[in-house]
């Protein structure tokens, strides 16, 4: 049995000095979320980049109680932690927070997440959405956007990359009727802070999906992380929306820039600008953004 202890005072929940890549969007987002969560919490972490770069035994970046079990069971482990704390009479004092990547959340742990929602566990689940299986080398997930090239949906002579749009998990979460669902981006710090705080203030299941750009996975210059997140939002491809009890209550208005401005700096979309077949996909991507703009009224 081995365990590593740090205090909240030295770490503020999530300590720097971990092994994330330069320019990692996820590590910045987790730091913001943890500053809002505070010291009275238990963190449950699915297998993935965050788990791996923050806890190579015997090191740990966590100054709060933290547990990792498996890839697909973070929602169920969080359910068990919550049930135990409830039975111990501690749930008024201690918040249960879970982190999972998009693969853990949209794909392999989807059933467990739905179970956690419908059983009404008091857990704030944060999905760190970098749109592929980055920890294993940029394989396609259910969250990979249309036309992105990944190592398992590669662009090729007869392929323009991923041929399906992202799974819309925020809408699926909202359809469970849970009290709070939100999308956010690590590039809008104040908005993410507010949503983390809001999620922590509501009792019951909460789902916050945070867009976190990934320099090696997306293929852009690592100093551009915040810019990449903003471009995704401002073109309409990543709508920033809040739901309460299944209803949309707030959206972030956008400038509506062309999707090319977001696609061009990224290696995963490079092929779209090099072939006729690739170029033919760009209007389809623009239509996905336009559909989001219409659906959520992103432009006044």
């Amino acid at each position: 049995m081995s365990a590593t202890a740090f205090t909240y005072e030295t770490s503020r929940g999530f300590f720097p000095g971990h092994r994330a890549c330069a320019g990692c969007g996820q590590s910045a987002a987790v730091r913001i979320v943890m500053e809002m969560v505070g010291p009275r919490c238990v963190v449950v972490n699915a297998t993935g980049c965050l788990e791996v770069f923050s806890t190579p035994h015997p090191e740990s970046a966590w100054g709060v109680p933290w547990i990792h079990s498996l890839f697909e069971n973070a929602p169920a482990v969080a359910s068990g932690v919550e049930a135990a704390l409830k039975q111990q009479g501690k749930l008024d004092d201690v918040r249960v927070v879970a982190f999972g990547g998009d693969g853990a959340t949209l794909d392999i742990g989807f059933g467990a997440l739905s179970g956690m929602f419908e059983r009404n566990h008091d857990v704030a689940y944060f999905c760190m959405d970098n749109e592929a299986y980055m920890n294993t080398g940029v394989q396609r997930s259910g969250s990979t956007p249309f036309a992105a090239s990944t190592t398992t949906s590669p662009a090729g002579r007869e392929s323009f990359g991923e041929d399906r749009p992202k799974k819309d998990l925020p809408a699926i979460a909202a359809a469970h009727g849970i009290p709070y669902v939100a999308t956010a981006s690590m590039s809008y710090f104040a908005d993410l802070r507010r949503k983390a705080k809001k999620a922590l203030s509501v009792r019951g299941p909460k789902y916050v999906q945070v867009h976190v750009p990934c320099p090696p996975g997306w293929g852009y210059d690592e100093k551009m992380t915040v810019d990449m997140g903003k471009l995704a939002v401002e073109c309409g491809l990543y709508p920033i929306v809040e739901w309460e009890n299944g209803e949309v209550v707030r959206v972030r208005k956008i400038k509506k820039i062309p999707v090319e401005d977001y696609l061009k700096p990224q290696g995963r979309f490079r092929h779209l600008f090099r072939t006729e077949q690739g170029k033919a996909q760009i209007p389809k991507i623009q239509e996905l953004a336009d559909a989001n703009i219409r659906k959520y009224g992103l432009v006044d």
Partner: protein
Amino acid sequence: MRKMIEGSRAVAEVVGLCRPEVISAYPITPQTHIVEELSQLVADGDIDAEYVRVESEHSAASVCLGGVAAGSRSYSATTSQGLMLMAEVLYNIAGMRLPLVITGVNRALSAPLSIWNDHQDTLALRDSGWLQLYAENNQEALDMHVQAYKISEDDRVLLPILVCMDGFILTHTYETVDVPTQEEVDAFLPPYRPLYRLDPDDPYTLGAFAGPEMYHEIRYEIQRDALAAKAVVKEVARDFQAAFGRWMGDVVEAYQCDDAETIYVAMGSVIGTMKEWVDARRAQGEKAGVLKLRCFRPFPAEELRQALAGAKRVVVLEKALSVGGYGILAAEIRAALYGQPNTPPVHCAAIGLGGRDVTFDTLDETEKRAAAGEMDFFAGLRTELLEAS
């Protein structure tokens, strides 16, 4: 108090007496009566626990993992395909050294689909780090749950335990059992006091990954402690006898073995049939004995060597086998006896797969075929059903 109740009811009542704070399960035949009874006990306020009704066995095991890690004694029950679905989590629970008790109702594995009894499911988890106890009857199943929590939570052990009981044969059979009182169980089983738990006042990182420079040693510790747990299993059986006056063996139980020339080895409810059959064989002048393996993990190799040393022949009756290999028990017993002086031949009979009844006729057949020198065979096979190979 002595009561005539179903095996599942007996398990549910004793689990309640162990005061779990988190219970989580997913229904699967023939585990269902246990979790239905537990649900009712919680619904009636007889058990003060959070009952988490999950969407799969994978999540049931994961909820228990989270519950124990947060410091609450937890419980689940499953069988067969459910145990297979839990398998990934079960390895993880053992590796994280979280004490937990799960009732492993024994049922065959698909395909073909079969809801009936054998031991293929729990034996498939033999390498997981879970300790495994097998019950002969409902009283033993009941008693084993109390013992299992005490063993699992012992600081020298900190490994989870599967309490294995035969599906339908035990779970759905009414027997008279002595159900202890809450005071008696409380006196024997103190509240769970974890060394480490998820506590904001004393934060720990649980479940960090280990590179090649650490993993080897962590697995060594699990193996070391699993082997050493045998002494704790024995100690707890003795303590239980002192407290409750019942003894059904510790890691093994020998029946009529002292002068036995042929010793029949098995686990679970078939032991009852075998004991009666051995009595009948002795009435015919055959010096036969039964060795019950009560604790399969840790594997009691020394006790088996001692118990089998004087026999002229050992016949292992297996409700499972490693397909393409050998009977699982027989292979391990052969390994345990290897290199010993005067090692008896160890025969292996696959019996009772998928709920096929094991009768005196089956046992007569194993006796004859082993005596004729057959080493590995299926007993009770309906050869008229076999397709040409």
